[in-house]
């Protein structure tokens, strides 16, 4: 890996549904990643491609979203909407040439001790390997 990647501090945005457990708690792993933003939502159904694209536009290197498992949505269908929107967002970022690993949806999630940290660590580890988002330059040129 190049020097640049060694110093690279990934900017990560996490969208988290309140009911899946993630949104209720602060995330311990945050200390490791200074550029980590947790955005709490009442339901993963609020996530749409507009939010995801906006975060990439603003220079996020990775976006992870958490929601409840199939059949367990507090609002019945929110996580299904999230899954549909996620598919569209995935295809849009593919068109834009953004690496697919920069976006992840975890719809199998009820917070268990330690599981959340390990998921985030693994995700951020993946981002570190890919390096900074090509879209960071939009903001740096200003």
């Amino acid at each position, binding site marked *: 890996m190049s020097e640049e990647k060694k110093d690279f501090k990934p900017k990560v945005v996490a969208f988290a549904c309140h009911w899946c457990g993630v949104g209720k708690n602060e995330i311990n792993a945050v200390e490791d990643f200074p550029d980590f933003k947790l955005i709490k939502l009442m339901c993963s159904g609020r996530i*749409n*491609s*507009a*939010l995801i*694209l*906006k975060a*990439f*536009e603003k220079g996020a290197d990775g976006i992870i979203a958490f929601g409840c498992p199939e059949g367990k949505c507090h609002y019945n269908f929110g996580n299904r909407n999230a899954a549909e929107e996620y598919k*569209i967002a995935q*295809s*849009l970022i*593919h*068109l*834009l*040439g953004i690496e697919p690993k920069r976006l992840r949806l975890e719809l199998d999630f009820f917070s268990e001790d330690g599981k959340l940290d390990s998921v985030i660590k693994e995700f951020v580890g993946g981002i570190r390997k890919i390096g900074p988002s*090509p*879209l960071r*330059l*939009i903001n740096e*040129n200003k």
Partner: protein
Amino acid sequence: MIKDIIKKTKAYYCLDCGKCTAVCPVALFDGDFSPRRIVGETITREDKVLDDCRIWNCLTCKMCHERCPSDVNFIEFIRLLRVDARGEGKEGICSHGGAIQSLMKIMTAPNLNQKRLDWIRPDLKTSKDSEYLYFVGCLPYFDLFFSNIKANSLDIARSTLKILNLLRIEPQVLPNERCCGHDLLWSGDVENFKKLAQHNIAEFKKAGVKKIVLSCPEGYACFKSEYPNYLGKFDFEVVHISELLPDKLSSGEIKLKPVKGKVTYQDPCRLGRFSNIYDNPREIINSIPGIEFVEMKRSGKNAMCCGTSSWMNCTQYSKQIQLERLKEAKSTGAETLITFCPKCQIHFLCAQSEINYPEELKLKVIDLTTFLANALGGE
């Protein structure tokens, strides 16, 4: 400076006659919106206008300018006000949560490596050294983003390429062309518009193309007048697909098979009032054997807008405009409404997908390139 905007667009010539408001599709439904009053109020109390949310509601369809006896360029007036308002941190209400605005801004990134050519089927021929370029524009993005209303915007791209191949043109199609910037420009974001334009011009130069063919009227109008306006000399010939066709159709070089049915045609503002292309699309439609073509009451220069522009301020009035236009199309007895702009098609399909949209007003909405491509291959 608002004084300069008034001067530049000759707004001070306004006679207060109200013809603009009488023909404005927004004013037809939104009692608060009146081009006449906006001009009048701006002249009398300049400082307030930038706070006015009405400046974002204009569709910039140019109907007002078409009718104005004093040649006041109202839509340019609005556009320049938007530039100033944006300078003060204001903006319109983005439709679709701002996703399309984000797409456009993301495309200003210099090191983008798009994967936007997957739609080109093996039977469609492109080349790497043709002097022709087919500028696809936002179609791959629209196709995906509007899959819920089955816009199938890439059908337009495939049809255009099929038609070009038939004309013995195997154009270049660039993997890293950007959005043309039309919508950013019309929503007052000149800075990002220029970035997109510069990227595009660099891509065109690198590819060594001389002629740019477009199937989108917004891109066409933008390349034709806004690129030279903002970036100086634009050394490429800009051709709309409709300009290539009528001769070849009348000479019989392109053979068409009969298509039965009654159709009507929606003039897109950027092709009609902006670019003065009214006859070519009609000649194309009439050249298809078996087709019965009927005009809507408001057509050509008087064609009514499809209700939304630049992906912003899509309001209940937009829906009312769309419903009004679809009613007009249906009243001709046509079962198909032919559009010639991917956005007109998306807007009319969206209006028809509303839950309370009356079944008896349903129409097939199809782009002219797709319609023509379906008729290709006659004896």
